[in-house]
């Protein structure tokens, strides 16, 4: 049931993002990986994604800026933010700017999946 879901995972921690992608793939998602804001922006232009999982703190263009640019091109694109900060301040700010939700690292993969489903308006399996 996750087959058709194209998720873009954006995080500068390559090991994290690749492993996460692999695990999502195992659960039937169709994940893609970007390790910087720039890469994510160019990938969004090339391919249509159903949802983006975006890390907030990245070198170069930060998560909020990436989200802003994506939202300006495609306001309907659901975005779930990831934050490594202890505080929820930045996550709340991201939600104010249109993110669907934010999750704290380390992630519970089941929670992520349920959030993805919720964001796409589907009930989880």
């Amino acid at each position, binding site marked *: 049931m996750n087959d058709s879901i194209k998720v873009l995972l954006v995080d500068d921690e390559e090991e*994290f993002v690749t492993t*996460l992608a692999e*695990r999502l793939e195992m659960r039937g998602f169709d994940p893609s990986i970007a390790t910087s804001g720039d890469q994510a922006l160019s990938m969004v232009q090339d391919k249509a994604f159903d949802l983006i999982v975006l890390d907030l*703190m990245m*070198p170069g263009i930060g998560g909020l800026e990436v989200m802003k640019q994506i939202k300006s091109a495609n306001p309907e694109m659901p975005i779930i933010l990831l934050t*490594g900060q*202890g505080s929820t301040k930045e996550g709340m700010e991201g939600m104010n700017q249109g993110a669907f939700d934010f999750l704290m*690292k*380390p992630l519970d993969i089941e929670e992520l999946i349920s959030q993805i489903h919720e964001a796409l308006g589907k009930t989880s399996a």
Partner: protein
Amino acid sequence: MADKMKKWWDLCRQIFERDEEKKEMPRRYRRLRRNIIFLMLAVTLIPLVIMAATNAMQYQKNIKAERIKPIRAIAGKAAHSFELFLEERLSAIHFISSSYSYEILSGQATLHRIFRILREEYGGYVDLGIINNDGTKVAYTGPYDLLNKNYSNQQWFNEARVRGVYISDVFMGYRDLPHIAMAVQNLNDQGESWILRATMDTKKFEDLISPMGMDPITDAFIVNSKGVLQSDSRNYGKVLDQFPMEIPSSDSGTHVRELTDPDGREIVMVYSRLIKYDFILVMILPQANIFQPWHTLKQEMSYMFVASVIAIFLVILGSTHLLVKRIREADEKRVIAFRELEYTQKLSSIGRLAAGVAHEINNPLAIINEKAGLLKDLVDQDKHHDKEKLMRGVSQILQSVDRCRNITHRLLGFARRIGVQYEMLDINEVIRDTLGFLEKEAHHRNLSIEFKFDEQIPKISSDRGQLQQVILNMLTNAFAAVKDGGQIVLSSWQKDDQTVALAIRDNGHGMSEETMRQIFEPFFTTKKGYGTGLGLSITYGIIKKLGGEIKVDSKIDQGTTFTIFLPKTPPGEMENE
């Protein structure tokens, strides 16, 4: 006397330094108390002493003047009466010589009769005689056989003939009583001069003087200008003795002298010179007597003075004690408050760190999480034969754990200090270590961080945790000052044999001179709203505690350099908190 002084000194010492306080009161408070006491004593006692002295002098002057005034008046009056008395006696003789002719008077019988009336009316007359132009006594009535005695070569005779009137000094006469002689000259029908001479005792003198001497301590007498006593003195001899002191020659009128007599008594001499006659009326009083009221007053004033000095002393001592105690309590409160602030600041810097640390730890944790999750997935799906994947997962987990451990170790290194703990430190390593906390931020903000370290810099003995806090503060400030992509240069060098230096330079917004002057003051902040205003003041405090110096150099829009100098060995004794 010495014993008394010692007792006083001991008492003072006891008041000054109470034993139990001596132990706990630090030296600066004792010094502060001593200074305040001395200052307050000076500002109270100096005017008091000056005022007391001025008053005393004024009182003394007034009392003396007041006491001498009546004595002076008495002396003046007595001199006047004395003069009148002599005048009167002289005028009686004058009257006789003018009323009767030489011929009548030279008849013994008439002279006898006149002498008798004179004695009855006036009293004190001893004899009466008529001396003719040649100086021969032609008539005489009295106790001696002086008829026909010639006086032509005697001084008094010549003086009487020249001046018409003569009054002798006192001499010992009939029955060894002091006498005085007076003579008046007249002319007979032939134009020859003759003299009427009378002698009288000086009992009347005493009557005149006695009112002056009513006071038993007052010595009143008469002397002539040669200093020979003309009446008995209580202290300075009998009549005709030489008065032992010189009487200053001065014009008539009453004069006052304070002097010491030959017996060493302090006296006041009041004297009045007669106008027409060669007599001086003298009154002598002991100074002690005259100035008795002054002495009483002086004593009372002295008691008063001593009492006020003691009162002032006690009040000053008490109030100073209280004041210094309050100051000390306030100081202690301030220290406690400052420590609390320091603690708050530490908490806030720990809070600041927490965000960064959380991010740094959460990232490797996220990796561990995913890797472990993946391993679980693989096992779940029975894909555990994919050994390479399993191994990679496990080694990634181990690496991430390593990352976490590094971070927690750094964090512990920072949080560890409570007291000052000295150890040998490589300052470069401490800087690098501390920078580790902020590496992520530097990375994310594209800050360029350049190291210009003297790698041969000697190790110093200092406190790692405190230095880390200082460097972290400096770095946080530098990070806040620069824009994203800004530059921060960290350098270290050996300043001299005893000192190493480290500098943190940024190319941020810099600050004005006004700001630079205030940055080390507590609660001064330019980061309105989110700064505590304590970072630099605490940094300053720590550096001072470590025996170092901090210097700032800044230009608006060009950047700021903080330079810290640290001693290789910490200063002497350090207080352990």
